[in-house]
């Protein structure tokens, strides 16, 4: 078919323009602004004086920032790798089922993912609450002393980690299942004829062929968990928010509770750089590890 290239380019530009305009307006421009504000002492609304890198220089010695950074790292450690492993195990189990039963079980595992975080919080409050939580009754039955889980420094992060894995695993399971389905059945049949045990088949066939999906799931998890906020915020209500501080919470606190837009922006930029560096680095590392196989 003959086409007029100039006309095509023109139509393409018109079609792309609405997206581009919105993208520039609500993403690129605010991001640039954020970088700018982080070098000022601006409040939440309005402009401030240029203070150079002062907002960044005070971060290392800011105890609350250090708590937030440490808690975020701890949370990532608690959720990313365990979450990936749990999702993989569940996906392997679900993939062995057939037909409607598979769809039904998958739906059950996916259900938590569609819940809003407030509902997740309520559900788990009924489980974990010191006074009326179901888990406390189980503790009573077993003769274990009740633990104020969401009020305890030791148990807060692990508990929120478990809740987060329960909440978000559905999506990872779906990705893993798609990956498992893309491995042709014939390859497993060939392996069966090649005397491959179940464990050998997993280690030498499923695992390497699933590696790209594993890398993807791990990266998505990493980015999502570095940005942890909602669950920590909700579970901290009436508890110890300053001890449970995570980076996004700290940004929120500085900006919206202490009216320090400049300092909040500096933390946000730091987190932004951290997410980019960590995720790009680990994605490349995992890809290379896969390539060597």
């Amino acid at each position, binding site marked *: 078919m003959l086409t007029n290239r100039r006309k095509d380019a023109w139509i393409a530009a018109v079609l792309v323009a609405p997206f581009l305009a919105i993208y520039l307006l609500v993403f690129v421009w605010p991001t640039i602004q954020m970088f700018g504000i982080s070098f000022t002492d601006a409040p939440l609304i309005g402009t401030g004086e240029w203070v150079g890198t002062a907002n960044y220089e005070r971060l290392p010695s800011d105890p609350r920032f250090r708590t937030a950074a440490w808690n975020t790292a701890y949370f990532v450690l608690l959720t990313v790798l365990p979450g990936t492993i749990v999702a993989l195990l569940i996906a392997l189990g679900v993939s062995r089922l057939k037909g409607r039963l598979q769809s039904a079980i998958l739906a059950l595992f996916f259900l938590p993912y569609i819940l809003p975080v407030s509902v997740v919080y309520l559900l788990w409050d009924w489980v974990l609450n010191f006074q009326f939580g179901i888990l406390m009754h189980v503790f009573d039955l077993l003769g274990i002393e009740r633990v104020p889980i969401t009020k305890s420094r030791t148990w807060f992060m692990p508990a929120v980690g478990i809740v987060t894995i329960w909440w978000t695993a559905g999506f990872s399971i779906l990705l893993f299942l798609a990956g498992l389905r893309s491995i*042709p059945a*014939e390859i497993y*049949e060939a392996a*069966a004829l*090649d005397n491959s045990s179940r464990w050998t088949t997993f280690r030498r066939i499923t695992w*390497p062929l699933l590696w790209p999906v594993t890398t993807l799931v791990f990266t998505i998890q990493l980015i999502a968990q570095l940005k942890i906020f909602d669950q920590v915020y909700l579970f901290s209500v009436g508890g110890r928010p300053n001890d449970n501080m995570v980076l996004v919470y700290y940004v929120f606190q500085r900006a919206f509770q202490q009216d320090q837009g400049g300092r909040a922006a500096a933390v946000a930029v730091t987190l932004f750089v951290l997410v980019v560096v960590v995720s790009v680095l680990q994605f490349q590392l995992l890809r290379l590890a896969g390539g060597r196989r």
Partner: protein
Amino acid sequence: MTGIALERVSKRFGSVDVIKDLSLDIGAGEFVVFLGPSGSGKTTLLRMIAGLETIDSGALTIDGVRSEGLAPGQRNLAMVFQNYALYPHMTVAENMAFGLRNLGLPSNTITSRVAEAARMLEMEKLLARRPAELSGGQRQRVAIGRAIVKEPKAFLFDEPLSNLDAGLRVRTRVELAELHQRLGSTMIYVTHDQTEAMTLADRIVILNNCRIEQVGTPMEVYANPASRFVAGFIGSPAMNFIPVTLTGQGDRAAARLGDGSVVPLPGAPQGEGPWELGIRPEALQVAAEGMTKATATVVERLGDRTLVYARLGDGTQVISQDAGKSQVRAGDGIGLTFDTSALHLFDAAGRAVLL
């Protein structure tokens, strides 16, 4: 050397019969081809032998050992899949070594077997490559190599040539025949291509509708098809079928065509009509006079011979043959002569009736 015996095996998928009460003996070192249209159960039968499908009832004996309860790996068979089923993340050498490693063979044995297979299939230079870096024909070789290194009791091939282009298919077919001669192993080969079956097989097993229609050497099934189905399925172009009525007794028995012309039969058949006379195109020659008259509709010149598609007086379409330098043109009236030594007669149930 391994014989394989199936005794009254059956297989159902849900409420659908796929294989029904089938028995078959495959001799040691034999090259047997399962031939049939799609849905005839030939691939299922192969997969039942391999252990990839369970056998609902009946017995499978491989090399004297009852095997229907054994896992695929324990049957010591090798299979070449239609899509090759190579492990995409392993090199050619690793693909071939995988099964041997699982058997716990010492690594020098594995290395020498892989090298030997690579030499035999002329793919030494490909050993470090991954399947994605190979052409279709090369992948096919790797799949065969992966089967050879296992030194299996028997080779199973599931339509292995169907993904190759025409030229490569012919070459690989010849190589498979050579491979069988060199190894002397039992081979079972599934195809829907009757040319592959005719050229490769020691014996052809023709499957239709969940059961065996006929078992025989290529020439047996070609020359003496047991049923109308086999007669129509084997041979290209296909056999002509002409509705006839029978007249006369003993030496004077004859078939009367729709237009009234008469073809003498070697003997009087037993059984029930309506009857169909079967004759292959090469036995139905164009002649000036002939036993019956027809009108040529299409003329195909193949060089060494000419195929003349013709309509008989009663409207039946037939394919007849003429010399390479035939003068016949579409629309011409022609005469057709039946080679009475190559006639087949089929009864109402489609069974071949002995003449």
